[in-house]
């Protein structure tokens, strides 16, 4: 029995700061995905919504919000929140419904409207919420954690600020031709390093912005796709939504401390390694089989971490990959041909879905101006706050 589902349609609303309600973005993306699939809204049997927590009640029940906005059709719905991994978890909900035989065709939608500046915890005084307390007691912003990882690469592997800047330079070039990208301007190493330091060693141009945006997919069973004439659709071969293993000995946002490894032995793989491993194992491929990857470059140095987590290189070798151009378009394994978060900024519940949109365009040969030639297998990867793995593998 196959565990694959077809990606029948993909659609996005361009990323930016548009100042509109998130539902409007979601509808634009959903209608684009439906049109791309050639499926009418009334034929959708299940809607999976990736929630946003900064847009009131409609954001907490995103599946129903989008279903109502598209016009109540009696479809079944589900909504889920998994922080930055919400999109992948919504994809997994829809996939499970299809594979279980509860439905043949499903719509997945994530959309966000974001505030300006640093992400702050949601309002109110909550002294039992680590996300509230880390701001209050430590002043630890998201870039604080990104910078701790970046400095660790410098201390452990001899990485340099220039190595990190090269990631931004590469991604800014990749995103130039992407009509959905918010930032379409090439930058140089000097420009990156001349931008203000936000949290040493990371500069302003190395930390992703927060954006408005939306992405949507129409997923279906392979039989449903075939019946509609899609004989060779892009297929979802794996979705990894794993949680960490105890003890998780890597410090993670928004925590104050790691688990203690005083009694239980550390697991075989770190959490981020295990996210990729679970996806690769499920898809039955190795890192060497990948043609393209979309990774969550919340910061420049985090992209380098992902190279190693996926297994594109050994630990401590990611700096060599970026310097050799291996992960640039035309290189051995292009990473973030879309331009990544560097060119998009983050629209939390939409981002993991957008990664799959990009991989689908790449595998269909429709990524004009940023095409990875002959791409057959693609992987997206990401991690959500509070232990949410997120990785999707698609095949052609």
């Amino acid at each position: 029995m196959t565990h694959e589902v077809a990606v029948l349609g993909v659609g996005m609303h361009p990323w930016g700061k548009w100042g509109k309600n998130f539902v409007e973005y979601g509808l634009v993306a959903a209608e684009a995905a439906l049109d791309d699939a050639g499926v009418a809204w009334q034929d959708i049997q299940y809607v999976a919504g990736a929630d946003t927590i900064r847009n009131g009640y409609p954001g907490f029940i995103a599946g129903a919000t989008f279903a109502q906005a598209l016009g109540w059709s009696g479809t079944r719905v589900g909504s889920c929140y998994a922080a930055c991994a919400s999109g992948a978890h919504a994809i997994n909900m829809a996939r499970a419904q299809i594979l279980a035989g509860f439905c043949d065709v499903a719509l997945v939608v994530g959309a966000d409207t974001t505030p300006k500046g640093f992400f702050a915890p949601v309002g109110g005084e909550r002294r039992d919420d680590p996300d509230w307390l880390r701001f209050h007691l430590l002043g630890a912003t998201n870039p604080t954690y990104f910078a701790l990882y970046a400095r660790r690469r410098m201390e452990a592997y001899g990485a340099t600020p220039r190595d990190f800047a090269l990631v931004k330079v590469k991604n800014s070039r990749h995103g130039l031709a992407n009509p959905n990208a918010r930032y379409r301007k090439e930058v140089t190493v000097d420009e990156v390093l001349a931008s203000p330091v936000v949290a040493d060693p990371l500069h302003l141009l190395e930390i992703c912005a927060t954006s408005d945006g939306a992405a949507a997919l129409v997923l279906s069973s392979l039989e449903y796709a075939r019946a509609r004439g899609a004989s060779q659709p892009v297929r979802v071969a794996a979705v990894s939504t794993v949680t960490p293993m105890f003890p998780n000995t890597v410090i993670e946002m928004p925590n104050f401390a790691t688990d203690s490894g005083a009694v239980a032995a550390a697991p075989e793989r770190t959490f981020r390694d295990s996210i990729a491993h679970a996806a690769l194992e499920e898809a039955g491929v190795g890192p060497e089989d990948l043609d393209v990857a979309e990774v969550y470059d919340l910061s420049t140095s985090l992209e380098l971490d992902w190279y190693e987590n996926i297994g594109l290189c050994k630990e401590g070798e990611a700096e060599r990959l970026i310097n050799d151009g291996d992960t640039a378009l035309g290189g051995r394994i292009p990473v973030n041909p879309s331009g990544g978060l560097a060119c998009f900024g983050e629209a939390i519940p939409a981002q993991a879905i957008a990664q799959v949109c990009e991989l689908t365009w790449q595998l269909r040969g429709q990524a004009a101006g940023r095409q990875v030639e002959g791409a057959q297998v693609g992987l997206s990867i990401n991690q959500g706050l509070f232990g949410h793995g997120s990785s999707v593998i698609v095949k052609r």
Partner: protein
Amino acid sequence: MPGPTRAQRRYPGWVAQLKERVPAVEGWFTIGDAPALLGTRCTACGTYFFPREESFCRNPGCRGRQFDEVELSRRGRVWSFTDNRYQPPAPYVSPDPFVPYGIAAVELEREHMVVLGQLDAGVDTSALRAGQEVELVVGPLYEDDDHEYVVWKWRPLRPSGGEREVQQ
């Protein structure tokens, strides 16, 4: 912001000294001569927790429900560090104007855990290295009319250097 009280206007230095020094969060650390973080330890398996865990042991191989309060190691080694150059959003309470501060992730050997903390005021992060030994101190976080709220901070034992001991 409320203005200064009449007593503060008359005797600013004297009133400042009278401000009560209180932890910015209750039960997370001690504020004596040798301050320490307060964690808990599962009485069944011995796993440490910080912040304190008091209901269910999180070791999946343990069903422990009882915990002892323990002082965590006062010294550890720097795993990584950074600084914050821009004012964070509330609920961080910032002085006006904002004052940048360092943050370190510190490995505690006995507990096998890494704990975050601000660096003590005046610590130059450019002189820090991974592997450097640091000690827990208590320092001001913010204040109001009556209280000085304090929090745990890390201070290098040898501010001017330290060995590079990096272990993966």
